[in-house]
């Protein structure tokens, strides 16, 4: 009853047979051991499970593993291997650290990946654009201000590199 899937996760090729109803988030966490992607609601409302699927920020609790067949996925664990990271932390990760953009850290991986998607599409977002782009990621600890500053920090750093 398994369905064969073949996908790229953080640059690695993964081939598996999975139950058709298996959620992508459970595939990532339990089959691949990538537990940096968190489950906060299972209903796509909190954004803790956000990953990049073919570059788009997707809530992996509301996508089946079989739907990701053929896709390229980046989870929080894979960010340090992206070209933007330049061998260290990705500038968005660095921004969250520099600007105190997290407290408990549970929403952080999803928040970071949503911000990565935003900055790839819009390298100079305004405060309002950042807030809108992160509206699908809930944080109960920080009050968001420091998260906005973290994304601004990363945007600035990424822009400086391109120059």
């Amino acid at each position, binding site marked *: 009853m398994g369905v064969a899937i073949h996908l790229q996760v953080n640059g690695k090729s993964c081939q598996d047979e999975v139950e058709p109803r298996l959620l992508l988030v459970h595939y990532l966490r339990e089959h691949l051991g990538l*537990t940096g992607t968190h489950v906060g609601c299972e209903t796509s409302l909190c954004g803790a499970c956000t990953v990049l699927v073919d570059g788009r920020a997707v809530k992996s609790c509301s996508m089946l593993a079989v739907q990701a067949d053929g896709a390229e996925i980046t989870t929080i664990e894979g960010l340090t291997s992206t070209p933007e990271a330049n061998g260290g932390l990705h500038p968005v990760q660095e921004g969250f650290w520099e600007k105190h953009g997290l*407290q408990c850290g549970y929403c952080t991986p999803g928040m970071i990946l949503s911000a990565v998607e935003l900055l790839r599409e819009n390298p100079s977002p305004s405060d309002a654009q950042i*807030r809108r782009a992160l509206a699908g990621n809930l944080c109960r600890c920080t009050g*968001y201000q420091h998260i906005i500053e973290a994304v601004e920090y990363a945007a600035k750093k990424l822009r400086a590199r391109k120059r």
Partner: protein
Amino acid sequence: MATATKLIGKPIKRKEDPRLVQGIAHYVDDLTLPGMLHLGIVRSPYAHARVRSVDVSKALAAPGVVAVLTAEDVQGAIAPIPCAAQIPDMKPAPRPVLATNEVRFVGEGVAAVVAADRYALRDAMDLVEVDYEPLPAVVDLEKALRKDSPRVHDGLADNAAYHWALEGGDVKKAFKQADRVVKLRMLNQRLIPVAMEPRAVLAQYDRGDNRLTLWSSSQIPHILRTQIAAMLNFPEYGVYVIVPEVGGGFGSKLNVYPEEALACHLAIKLEKPVKWNEGRRENFLSTIHGRGESCDMELAVKRDGTILGMRARVLADLGAYYQLLTPLIPTLTGLMICGCYRIQNLSVEITGVLTNKMATDAYRGAGRPEATYFVERAMDAVAAELKIDPAELRRKNFPKPKDFPYATATGLIYDTANYQGALELALKKSGYKALRRQQAALRKKGRLLGIGLSSYVEICALGPSSAMPAGGWESATIRIEPTGRVRVLTGSSPHGQGEETSFSQIAADMLGVGLDDVIIVHGDTSAVPYGIGTFGSRTLAVGGTAIYRCCEKLRDKLLKIAGHLMQEDPAKLVLRAKQIVSKRDPKKSISFAETVGAAYTAKTLPPGVEPGLEATHFYEPSNFTFPFGTHVAVVEVDRETGEVKLVKYVAVDDCGNLINPLLVEGQVQGGIVQSIGQAMLEEAVYDDQGQLLTGELMDYAIPRAADVPKLETFHTVTPTPVNPMGVKGVGEAGTIGATPALVNAVVDALAPFGVRHLDMPLKRERVWKAIHQAPSESAGRPRRSK
């Protein structure tokens, strides 16, 4: 402080963050053990029903199912959930880990299913057949207290769990002397904490060692260990509680829950690791709620605004059963009800009410946000009625700095404060006078600008043991290891607040080492000394002070050893930058490393000094601390849509000395946004059948990034004399101070319509109705004053 300060007071970025931003930290659900089974709880869909029968046969036969338990199976094996609150004449309402003959709230567990994987578990849970006979549900607080109300618990005379009263001064006289009595009925609505990480539990049993290990997303590892041992009648020395990364608590994980005991029981019984993950809907239904208090308040006032006395009658929605501190929380409202005002004549009556809902308990602020809200709303009602500026009214009624320590009519001793200092700074930073002018100008154009103040005092650093149900101290052990690295073991249990950083700052400064020479260990009961945990804004002021005291002990010992090696009087030595230096001759020094080495090789120790470098301190605070501040909210209300736009927010908080201003800022920002949630968006709504209508993030709105503006935060610094670092605690200031400022601002904006009060949350519909209904029909209007 005796040592030179290098790190304390600086906005050091967090040591915790590298693992968190890379997704390589471990929360409970990230742990997997060989042979691990999954536990699920079948929950009642009824608020109140008799359980006629539970048929588990189909579930047991389902693929992958290992066990199904009902109340019968755990009878006598697992004691009910403990409640630490002791209130005279309190009626009993213990929560069984699985419902026995009756269910008393939607979400109460009826059966526990164990299966090999999550998906098989989900399938099997649907196969448990429960035959319920619905009973009338008790939902509304006033109705619950009527004689003809159905009972939440059959055997009890009524639904009043307890009556708690407090009286100070001469209330009758105060009301007799009053020029006016201002009355207000207010609701501080039930809220749901919504930590981003739902609860999670993993239990493992080793029969050979008779060792039970429990990983849990908890704020209180040791209390949990003791209670699990007691509930399961298992020797406490065999119980190991480990709290790994915790994704937020806000009080919701300051508790002991059925799933913790059930997972342990099942791990022992099945000799397999058992994991339970809470779904978000379960989190809404069966993790503690907060607030849920209504208040009838009367203030006796002189024409000039002097408050002579207060009467408050509070009804507190306790839910169906007691969790760890359920009955106690409303009494904190009682203790703090006079806020930061000189109100020496006061009477407070609190009735704890049992209802067919999930228990309320400590949610960020726990009783104090309610007190602050009630008194701050009432102060604004007085200001409106007497036509006195709200800032002036507050100024008039503050105790002065010279009045501290200040004894309240509720029996507390406020440590130190300058309330007016914080108020004036908030007025200045918000441009208060200009705002009032702007408001008047806009009103002429029909625009609705509102300015709201809230001056608050909170009770923090919980607390002296004499005033706590089960110990208010905190512990620390510090070991300087032979290589000179410092291991700090704390009984506190930080879960996002950042104490791995602030505690490191304290230890590094005190011992003259670097930040990275220090590691903070917490949350593992086999590694750290018995502790109380993290809640009540106590971690830095109580847990941090225990660390400070340990450092003093170790510093003294290091100086003794160094003095012996240097042939110098230890009193003339000072510890800094990994050197022990003579105060008389700075060229005369010995390295920290050599001194530490001497403590371990133990060949050259001074007489009477023990080898090794380890110190333990159990710090007992002499009092609570009482941080304070003033917040100013400025809103504009759209008269066509009822939408409230938060235009400006200025917070002035005084939490004493700041160890790490960055972390303080994080706490303040986060707290205020939770307050915005309460004021504008959040409310746990139960229908008259006791169904939770806001049982999902879809229906229960917590603030999103786009819902909040930039907040401006400032501090005054009035160090507390209660502890040596002069720190007070700041974890709850935002949720205590901000809510009334926001509501006061909206009510102020609506003053031209004769609106004098609105209950939270201030959703568009409610605000629109207040504008568009005739004032006499306006919802939530206060009773007429005499």
